[in-house]
């Protein structure tokens, strides 16, 4: 194994270990052990790269939106958001260094940090209604898109510069919409945040495909990395990660009773709808409705909890915590009945950790310990991936014809139309009832061998 391949393996191992038992518990000190994943998902180096890259980029979108959300008022919360964002940047730069070396990683890091700063400047300029500063930030962002695209295209021949430029420009454009946080236009900011978050998975998949193709000898298992089983894992990563992010933002908004708390709750509810629809596509309409009811019950409990904290109402807090405990049991029972591959005890423990992390980050935020709040938020986001992996593995095991863990097609470099087609196929697969999906062989994959 080459030095870089070894370093990449170490980085991926560390990223995987970030969700391992003990680490979450030790860092968040919420006293709940995290159980090992319930099943074995596609775990090739290529699949790990795809998962890690998508997760790190998705968390970037969350943290940048937090910096933009808190940036206008400044203060300790803004500083903590900046530090958390930098930690995420370091994580991303380390991944780039493990593949492309220190010099490329340094250039990547410089440009990445610049675009974050430009977007914060843009947010402030919007808040100050300063047209000159907005223009300056926009000009610098345009330069960044060109320089960053050239850097990536130069490092990887599978990344066409114009395609990368379009993707990055879209990312920047979406974040400029997220900047509407600064002028109180939450009805624009929250949908933009959701689009930005989802878009990170498009960028992450495009980069992962290109890198896996470039280093196919060391990043083995490219067929597993983009198999239907892996796609399912990534989809659940995305939905559950977004749930975690939006729940945290809604709770923080509720704690500070800011004007945007209603829009934050709406965004959280929309994620619930999307997640429920995804469940319904696999288990049917009745399951979708039952799941949605349970899930809303627990998101309402989060908001009730922070309302209790904000109002210093101990009874309300206790009621909310009781509801969250009930939810752990109720959702476990629901899922364990739907899928015999899920162990009820393990699943309850995973859900308990999830709810306790969200409560812990809110408590830290309410206490003004923003560093701790972001530390727990990071662990909570990582834990959502553990939960997604467990669920995806169990579902793929339950429906192996629908979600095989291999695909014979090589991963391809990103092409807009092809990627759009891929997304449409995944969406259509998820929207079909199970029997229909079995009959519809994905067009990019050869028939599965028995």
């Amino acid at each position, binding site marked *: 194994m080459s030095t870089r391949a070894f370093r990449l393996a170490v980085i991926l191992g560390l990223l995987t270990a970030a969700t391992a038992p003990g680490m979450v518990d030790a860092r968040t000190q919420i006293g709940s052990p995290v159980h090992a994943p319930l099943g074995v998902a596609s775990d090739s180096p290529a699949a790990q790269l795809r998962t890690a890259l998508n997760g790190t980029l998705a968390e970037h979108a969350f943290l940048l939106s937090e*910096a933009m959300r808190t*940036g206008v008022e400044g203060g300790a919360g*803004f*500083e903590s*958001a*900046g*530090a958390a*964002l*930098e930690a995420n*940047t370091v994580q991303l730069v380390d991944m780039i260094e493990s593949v492309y070396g220190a010099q490329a990683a340094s250039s990547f890091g410089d440009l990445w*940090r*610049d675009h*974050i*700063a*430009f977007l*914060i*400047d843009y947010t*402030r*300029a919007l808040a100050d209604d300063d047209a000159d*500063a907005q223009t*300056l*930030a926009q000009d*610098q962002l345009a330069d960044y898109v060109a320089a960053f695209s050239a850097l990536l295209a130069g490092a990887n021949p599978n990344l066409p510069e114009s395609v990368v430029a379009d993707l990055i420009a879209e990312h920047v454009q979406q974040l400029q919409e997220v900047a509407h946080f600064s002028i109180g236009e939450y009805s624009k900011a929250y949908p933009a945040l959701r689009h930005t978050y989802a878009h990170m998975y498009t960028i992450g998949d495009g980069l992962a495909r290109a890198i896996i193709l470039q280093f196919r000898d060391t990043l083995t298992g490219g067929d597993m990395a983009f198999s239907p089983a892996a796609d399912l894992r990534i989809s659940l990563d995305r939905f559950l990660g977004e749930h975690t992010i939006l729940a945290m933002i809604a709770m923080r908004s509720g704690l500070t009773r800011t004007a945007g708390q209603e829009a934050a709750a709406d965004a959280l509810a929309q994620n619930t709808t999307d997640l429920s629809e995804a469940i319904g596509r696999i288990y049917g309409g009745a399951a979708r409705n039952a799941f949605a009811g349970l899930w809303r019950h627990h998101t309402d409990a989060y908001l009730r909890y922070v309302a209790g904290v904000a109002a210093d109402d101990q009874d309300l807090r206790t009621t909310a915590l009781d509801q969250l405990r009930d939810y752990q049991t109720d959702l476990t029972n629901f899922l364990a009945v739907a899928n015999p591959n899920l162990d009820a005890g393990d699943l309850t423990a995973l859900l308990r950790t999830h709810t306790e992390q969200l409560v812990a980050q809110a408590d830290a935020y309410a206490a003004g310990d923003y560093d701790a709040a972001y530390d727990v938020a990071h662990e909570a986001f990582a834990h959502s991936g553990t939960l997604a992996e467990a669920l995806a593995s169990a579902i793929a095991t339950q429906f192996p014809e629908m979600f095989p863990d291999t695909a014979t097609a090589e991963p391809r470099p990103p092409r807009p139309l092809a990627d759009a087609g891929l997304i449409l196929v995944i969406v259509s697969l998820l929207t079909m009832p199970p029997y229909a999906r079995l009959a519809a062989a994905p067009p990019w994959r050869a028939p599965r061998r028995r």
Partner: protein
Amino acid sequence: MRPEARDAIHMAFDELVMGADVSGLWDTVAGGGGVEVAPFPNAVDRSLKLTSSPSGDPTTLCESVSAVDAMPLRVSADLLIAGGAEGASVRLELDDAAIGLVIRAGGVLGIEPVGRLVAGTVAAAQWYRVVLTLDPDRGTYRVTATPRNGDTIDGAEQSLSPMWRSSPSDPRLCISGPAVAGAELFLDNVAIE
């Protein structure tokens, strides 16, 4: 950005926008390199980045401290040397004729022209909180450099030579670096009090 109250000077750079002209922050900006706002250590907690000319001519920022009448005078700044840091250095001077502190990456914390104050090695790519305390009444000075995560390099109290005990007419603080092409000097949280 320029402080109104001159009984003390505090400079942080978090509110500056990327690409802003920062020359107006200082009385004078000289040298062949450049100075710009940097998203370092992160995009929220910003600093100034000083670079040298291709020939290694450093950038020098100077600010009058004549209105700061507090004694002993305490000058502090967060400094980090990065990039091609081999041989890169920072000069922190209080009046040309008074006292100069030299921090050299990979070298020792030192005072010029007295000579090296052998107190500890300053590493590159590490933030140091450098404090220079000057007490003309007692005829002493003291330098400390504290990395963010590490033990303080304490220069211990030293005696000023008689020629330095006279009060300069218009004392200035000058920060100069990094004196090596390709290196970068990051500067944050400058205070004179």
